[in-house]
């Protein structure tokens, strides 16, 4: 009886260890490897009218190069994404710096307050910017009332500018966390040492704070750059023709064109480029340092 119980118990433990391992493994498999593999597979198939023919071809990749709209749109996406990343860092770094170095009380409530935008729906934020930037929008009426413009500016909404502003609003709070973490971890006496040795506050920041929080900054860049390159909802709603992005192109191939193989190849090219950029960035900083900063 006792032996049986022990045996049962042992089996249970083994099972748990095994299932614990296989859970994370299957999670990766199910939600990362399999979908990527499916897209990769589709990108080598062929489209005929509305049916997909599983026949190997590299025609889709040739089309990516042949169609003169693909590469410029891809580059535009990279530029918009880079602008969003830089703008977000510009907003988030000072906020994180302030929280880590100046605020003594209520750090946690303030950090939580920064999560405010997460509690609003993504679409709500985009529509809010439509209201602010629109022809009859808040910004235009403000400009009119201040007599800065004669008539409402129609460049605000439906432009890359609108896409960038909206995406910065959505993503910059995300950045505060990795930046705050690396700033908070920094030994503050290093700044005293720098100042003591004759460094002005600006020099101390550039020579000590910035290099030491560099890994956190890289994490922050990845946090924003990766998801925004493939962005298609925001450009569809506020982008207009000039704000049309690569993500919209992929979405259209899947949706309207019903050309899944071509859409897949475009998606895979984007994935590959972003992945290479990520690896290069991680290598430049040192992967273990980036892991540390998390």
């Amino acid at each position, binding site marked *: 009886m006792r032996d049986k119980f022990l045996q049962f118990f042992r089996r249970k433990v083994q099972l748990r260890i095994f299932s614990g391992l296989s859970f994370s493994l299957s999670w990766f498999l199910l939600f990362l490897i399999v979908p990527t593999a499916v897209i990769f597979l589709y990108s080598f198939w062929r489209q005929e009218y509305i049916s997909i023919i599983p026949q190997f071809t590299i025609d889709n990749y040739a089309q990516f190069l042949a169609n003169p709209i693909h590469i410029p749109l891809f580059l535009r996406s990279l530029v918009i994404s880079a602008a969003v990343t830089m703008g977000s860092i510009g907003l988030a770094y000072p906020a994180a710096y302030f929280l880590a170095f100046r605020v003594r009380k209520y750090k946690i409530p303030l950090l939580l307050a920064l999560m405010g935008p997460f509690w609003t729906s993504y679409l709500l934020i985009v529509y809010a910017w439509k209201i602010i930037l629109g022809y009859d929008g808040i910004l235009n009426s403000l400009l009119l009332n201040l007599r800065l413009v004669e008539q409402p500016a129609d460049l605000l909404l439906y432009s890359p500018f609108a896409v960038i502003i909206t995406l910065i609003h959505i993503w910059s709070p995300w950045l505060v966390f990795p930046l705050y973490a690396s700033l908070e971890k920094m*030994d503050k*006496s*290093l700044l*005293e*040492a*720098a*100042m*003591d*040795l*004759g*460094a*002005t*506050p600006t*020099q101390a920041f550039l*020579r*000590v704070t910035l*290099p*030491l929080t560099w890994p956190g900054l890289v994490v922050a860049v990845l946090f924003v750059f990766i998801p925004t390159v493939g962005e298609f909802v925001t450009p569809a709603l506020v982008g207009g023709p000039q704000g049309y992005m690569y993500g919209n192109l992929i979405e259209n191939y899947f949706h309207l064109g019903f050309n899944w193989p071509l859409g897949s190849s475009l998606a895979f090219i984007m994935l590959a480029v972003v992945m290479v950029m990520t690896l290069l960035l991680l290598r430049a900083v040192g992967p273990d340092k980036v892991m540390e900063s998390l």
Partner: protein
Amino acid sequence: MVIDVELRGVTKRFADIVAVDNVSIQILKGEFFSLLGPSGCGKTTTLRTIAGFEDPSEGEVFISGQSMAGVPPFKRPTNMVFQHLALFPHLSVEENVAFGLKVKRLAKQEIRQRASKFLEIVRLSGLEKRKISQLSGGQQQRVAIARALVTEPTVLLLDEPLGPLDLRLRLEMQEELKRIQREVGTTFVYVTHDQTEALSLSNRVAVMISGRIEQVGTPLEVYEKPRNHSVAEFMGETNMLGGRYLDGAVEIDGLSVRVTSQASKGTDIIFSIRSEKISIGKTLSGPDNVFKGTVRGVTYRGSDSVYDVQLSERIIIKVRSTNLALESIYRVGDEVFVGWDIDKALLISSLR
């Protein structure tokens, strides 16, 4: 004599705590000056006030005769060796040392020359390219010292830099500090709670207790001639005895202790007698005061031992004795004689 650093009535308050209380000191050029005191006595705050990291609530700091009021740390001719060193982890040994020169935008050639000169002074030549994390504790100390000296500050401030080192390394670094100071001739202001360190390194020592400077003097003066009760009690291992002075002797718990004193008859006095100035033996003749007692406690410390000897019902004194031979090491319960000459006892004028 040129005064490098002068504090005039410096007081520093944090909320309602007075960390530094009306401190006035003058530190001479080329001097090795120590601020000695128990932890929390305000010595580090005093040092940080000189460096410019704290603004005095009252009073003023002068360096080379210039008032430092409103002068930020990066414009002061002082450099600090921090308690936890604060070396830059992302820079190599050489880059750490060159930091102060780089922010002053000196020519590359000169930076390289001066960095290597000071790395040589602290004997780290050959380790230029190492990372800080690859150095031993003692080597890190040397980098911190070189980094602080390389810009040739008027004053070098050292905030218990040897604290985290083990005893052997600490003694070695003490020697090194003395040598480096002799070589560069910079004024050193050294903060420590370790009396041996302060006494062996310094030209002059300021004893600081609860925010006040109690005494400033040469190591010999502050140890042998403590000005008051607090200094006498803080420095070394001492026995405080107090009683009514009558005709060349003090009556304490039935013992008549002979003292040299100018005190007037019938007044209460306290005197201090250091543990190492008392002789102990199975037999004892010679000292002016000899008392019979019983050993109540022994602390064996290798080169010497400290005994708690009970002389009367209420008087137990500490006696330190060099362990010359096995026979001169006593055990608890041994009957011994202890004694001292009257000029070894120090009269502490103030009764607390």
